């Protein structure tokens, strides 16, 4: 119980920071979170809010990483499990599991989506000059979502391009593996 409330406090605090977030030409603020013991960051200006995980309504025949849709104050929001999106093993959803609600700029306007991550960490500012470009790994499709690598106290943070990640048409990788079971 105490652990859960601590999470709630963290979420509240981060939501506060998100609402005040700014960016300028030199510095960029990133919301960081954990997945499989690595720390990832996304541009805080694309983050709408953070909420705890709750069960979503499944969408038929959706790719495996789409966990379903949630009701976010009257808006139907699709939820993507980032681990599965990256081809990692699925983690058990726990009290620490959070959904980061992001605004994605797609061709036909802004879409609201949720991403499931292991846990949120913090909000960090990076000087744009400090961000290193990511190493080119030719045969890994996931690296195209990585905009760069940032450093906080010798810790590496992988910075993601949330737009590219969530708008990419990448169903085939998963849906082709799911064959329809016959009765």
């Amino acid at each position: 119980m105490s652990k859960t409330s601590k999470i709630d406090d963290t979420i509240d605090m981060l939501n506060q920071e998100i609402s005040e977030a700014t960016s300028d030409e030199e510095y960029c603020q990133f919301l960081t979170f954990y997945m499989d013991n690595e720390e990832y960051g996304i541009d805080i200006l694309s983050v709408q809010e953070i909420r705890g995980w709750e069960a979503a309504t499944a969408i038929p025949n959706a790719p495996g990483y789409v966990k379903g849709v949630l009701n976010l104050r009257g808006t139907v929001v699709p939820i993507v499990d980032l681990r599965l999106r990256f081809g990692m093993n699925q983690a058990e959803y726990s009290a620490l599991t959070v959904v980061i609600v992001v605004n994605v700029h797609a061709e036909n306007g802004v879409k609201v989506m949720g991403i499931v991550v292991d846990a949120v960490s913090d909000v960090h500012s990076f000087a744009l000059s400090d961000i290193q470009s990511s190493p080119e790994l030719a045969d890994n499709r996931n690296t195209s979502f990585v905009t760069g690598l940032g450093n906080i106290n010798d810790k590496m943070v992988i910075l993601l391009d949330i737009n590219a990640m969530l708008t990419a048409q990448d169903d085939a990788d998963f849906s082709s593996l799911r064959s329809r079971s016959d009765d």
Partner: protein
Amino acid sequence: MSIDLSQFHQVFFEESYEGLDIMESALLNLDPANVDAETINQIFRAAHSIKGGSGTFGFSQVAEFTHVVETLLDQIRGGERELTANFVELFLEAVDCIRRMMNQLEAKEPCDIPEAATIRKNFEDILAGKDTGGGSPSPATIADEAKADAAPSGWKIYFKPGEDIMRTGNDPLRMFRELASHGPLTVSVVVDDLPSISGIDPEKSYLRWNLELLANVDKSAVDEAFEWVVDESEIVIEPLGGAEQAIAATEAVSPAQPATPVQPAAQPESAKPAVADLPAQTNTQTTAPAVTPAVVSAEKASAPPATESKSAKVDKSKVEVSSIRVGIDKVDSLINMVGELVITQSMLGELGRDFTMDKLPKLLEGLDQLSQNTRELQESVMRIRMLPISFTFSRFPRLVHDLSRTMGKKIELKMIGENTELDKTVMERIGDPLVHLVRNSLDHGIEKPEDRIKAGKPETGVITLNAYHQGGNIIIKVQDDGAGLNRDRIREKAIANRLIAETDKLADEQIYDLIFRPGFSTAEKITDISGRGVGMDVVRRNIQELNGSVEVESDPGVGSSFTIRLPLTLAILDGQLVRVGEHVYILPLISIVESLQSFKGMIHRVAGGCDVLRLRNEYVPIIRLWKIFNIEPEYRDLDDALLVVVEGDNMKVAILVDDLLAQQQVVIKSLEENYRRVEGVSGATILGDGTVSLILDISGLIKLAGVRRDEYKRVKNDSGRAA
């Protein structure tokens, strides 16, 4: 059939006032020096709608008056005439006149505007070509003339207006603006005649001007600017000393000028910049020292910059969403309900402050009241938005009746699905497109009785209006059994209007699609019913603004059919909740034929095909929801299963579900908005407990299950043989 049209008068007046406002603001934004085709189109459409509406409701004075206005607008739009400041004035007068007519009609007074006749006369004179004041030849001809005459490079003008010039509504500024449209204009004012301040009559003009126009134009073009004041003013026009480079410059540039009015299709969708820009623009043109003509004209040729049109577009869309018309009584009843809700809330609050168990019955009673208040409130809010489409349909019988009589055609109007509910905002904006489509069917579609008899068809033509829900859409069909679209004539016309090149090879559908392009019309002669080519472009635009689509199908000699497809995004649906495994889905109640518990013997397995349910003397294919959705069900056995028989895409299917839950009204939310289209699902909704539930799309399910129509037909034939 008699329908009381007077109930729609108010709507018509409101729409017309809106249209007049649009015309007015567009006219005011219009710069004669730099005519924006889209703005002209906008004014034209507004006038066209007012004309159409007043025709429908039998306000013939307004209709006739507007027809004249519209004809002139059409000529300007088509590039046959150049817009001058005088025209703008005249149009504004006409707008005022129409507005006064509307006021009188609304007050149920006889329509009697003395100026109407004068204004109409003015328009008719212009149209008849008597008035050179407005009726200048097309820009192309000007350029030719200018070249041929090698006129001097400019004009020196002395202009002393009569004292009463302002009273007659002539503004020198407008004249100068018009002059400035020909080229750089230097204006200097002579104030010698000004009396002392105590002697000034503010309504009189005491000023004189010396003007220098650096433009290679005909004297007539200059005369034109002063056309309206020539009688009361002193005007001297002299050629300016020649500078040859100016001639060369004009020659180089003038062929580019006609591009603006002639090609409306190529224009970016844009409204004119704000009014405030106008004086500023003119000022720089008049006061700035004369720049070389080449530079100015070149700027003008590339006039509508992309950025400007973009910002204007944003403004426009903002305005669009701002208003919905609701009767004051409905608002009052809402306020009453909110009042009751507040009372209930305070009562419950009171109760909660010092609650003891003996107050339980009172609490329950209060909660009951609360739920009733909420339901009533919800219903009346919904009622504001949702109306049966008969609201729109019911204005058509009169329209068809009147028009078929004036055209000497025999036409029967059939209306189907009048109770299909439609969001009010959608309905308001679908009315005009529908009027256009019906008018088109009447005018172009249905043939004259004698032609019909010759073609071996019944004398009376039939126009069918059909509305129904399909999947996540509302479909409205306007169908006629007339001659169909004339493929070759559309093609010819499109080539003549340079919409396509002569060498273009187009499929039939592509050719039919051309009728939706702006400025397209195949009518041999312009009637006041349709045939100006405005209808179809408005139709498509209005429908696309609602995120819908319109398609045309045509069969020569058999008829044509326009299918409007509108999303249900805002619509409400009566839904049946069904459960499969742990998932709850919603079936549109309207598509459900019946629900039944199957027993052995009702189910047949068709070898190599699908399983079918024998329903009386019909065989219905069975769709297993769990199978096509890849989910885990509770029951897989088809014997003793719960089946919901639904109809979609003109065929019946039986859907296997685990359980039937409640029936309720659901608000449709879009899945596409944040996700994408999902096959077999038309949308989502939020249930009472806050969870999201998906609304099933029957025709999508049929597609997903791979039940093909021919297969279904075969089964049906088999059943016929068996029976």
